[in-house]
């Protein structure tokens, strides 16, 4: 079953075209690398899918719900980590996750166990009672992923989840995402190709607002060590 169906999606900022008639589908349960140079339209596409902003033209469906016509239902299916983890510095990690759980409609009696579940999954159990403002960058990113996991959404959209992390933290976060395969559909936006090679099964490359590649990892890299890099550079150099 298709988790994301996008058809002719276009977004214009005044006269600048950010994404131009994108069409693609993403199947349930896969981890998809969403690649492109900076400014290619990755974040714009994600913001439209998560209902943060509307498209100028076109259709987008998440788990069968149209994001423009049934935004609340569509948003219920999505866990979203924006480029900057949206943490309230004044709240403790626990308080913050509780707030997100309430917003996502987790039932009152399940909130506590849900917080413990995501905290365990992201390795932040020891940090639950610290203030968000006191967390290191790595932990902030983990809390960001934890809030996306709350309510067990079918689809996770992660916008550059490893940005600004040191190599060890980066590796930990990637392993964490890899562990989500099968249970969730994951769309991972990044411009770091090595990460995509480690965890993604499918790759979607976007350049100047248009899709230039949409295939399995094996097909795009052609089985070569540097296949993905070569393909990426050749597709995005024009």
């Amino acid at each position, binding site marked *: 079953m298709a988790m994301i169906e996008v058809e002719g999606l276009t977004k214009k900022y005044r006269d600048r075209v950010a994404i131009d008639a994108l069409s693609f589908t993403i199947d349930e349960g896969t981890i998809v690398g969403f690649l492109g140079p900076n400014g290619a339209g990755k974040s714009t596409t994600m913001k439209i899918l*998560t*209902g*943060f*902003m*509307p498209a100028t033209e076109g259709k987008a469906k998440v788990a069968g719900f149209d994001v423009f016509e049934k935004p*609340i*239902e569509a*948003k*219920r299916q*999505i866990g*979203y980590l*924006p480029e*900057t983890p*949206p*943490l*309230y*510095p*004044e*709240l403790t990690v626990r*308080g913050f996750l509780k*707030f*997100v759980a*309430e*917003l*996502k*409609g987790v039932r009152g009696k399940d909130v506590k166990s849900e917080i413990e579940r995501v905290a365990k999954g992201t390795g932040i159990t020891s940090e639950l009672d610290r203030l968000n403002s006191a967390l290191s960058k790595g932990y902030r990113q983990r809390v960001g992923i934890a*809030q996306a996991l709350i309510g067990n959404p079918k689809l996770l959209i992660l916008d550059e989840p490893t940005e600004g992390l040191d190599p060890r933290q980066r590796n930990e976060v990637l392993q964490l995402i890899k562990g989500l395969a099968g249970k969730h559909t994951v769309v991972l936006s990044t411009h770091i190709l090595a990460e995509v090679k480690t965890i993604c099964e499918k790759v979607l490359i976007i350049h100047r607002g248009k899709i230039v590649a949409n295939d399995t990892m094996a097909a795009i890299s052609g089985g070569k060590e540097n296949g993905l890099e070569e393909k990426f550079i050749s597709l995005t150099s024009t």
Partner: protein
Amino acid sequence: MRNVIAIAKKEMTVYLTTPWAWVVFTAVSFVSSGFFIALMERFKDIHDKVRLSQGGWDEVPADFQSLRNLTDGVVMPLFSTMLVVVLFIVPFLSARIFAEERRQKTFELLMTSPVTSTEIVLGKYLGSLAIVAATVGVTIVYPLVLTMFGSSFSATTSERTSTLEWPAVLLGFGALVLWGATVLAIGTFVSSLTESVIVAGLITFAICLLWMLIQALAPGAGEPVRGVLEYLSFEAQLRNPLRGVFDLKPLVFFLSVISAFLVLTHRSVESRRWV
């Protein structure tokens, strides 16, 4: 409704875990107790003078006749002064409501959660309103103190009477809260327009200050402008409740202003999606 409560609760937690609300509580307690003491001094002075003079209250100028009792002589003037204090502190509280959310990039979390813009606006407004009401609520301590320690005697029969006219006091207090709620609604809207907390605070203050001064323009204007200015002036609207006279007009007036600004806030939040 559940989402509204969740957002309101979060809003209150943020106020109470940062210095914002505490600074304001302290400032309001400090300033209002200063005014209370000054008003009590004036009240005492005039009563001492009356007691020593031959003619009693007949010799007191008309301006001071309201000082005969504690309700009109102390509590109501205190509430009138607090109107100005509210004008200074509420923009300070309201400035962060949306501006901070945008600056911290947490706005994206709210907008991508399965909640409607109406729920976001209402939750934020009601959570902040609780803080504003608590801040203004500090002033109810003074009438309580007067009731506990004060006493009053009827001028004609010398029988002990109740110290304060509580219906009038509560009406005045209600007017004060209503004014706070109005400034908050304006502040919420202004905060939704900018990312800068300071800009939001200053603009809210400027709008409310101009609104306060609008009545000064009225005497110079001819009809019908004068009538309109009089109607829009919040001081004129609050005159009756602050004299202890119940009047439905100011209630309707302020509730309309609050609703109008909340609708504008909703439009502004929605329009953020379109940029």
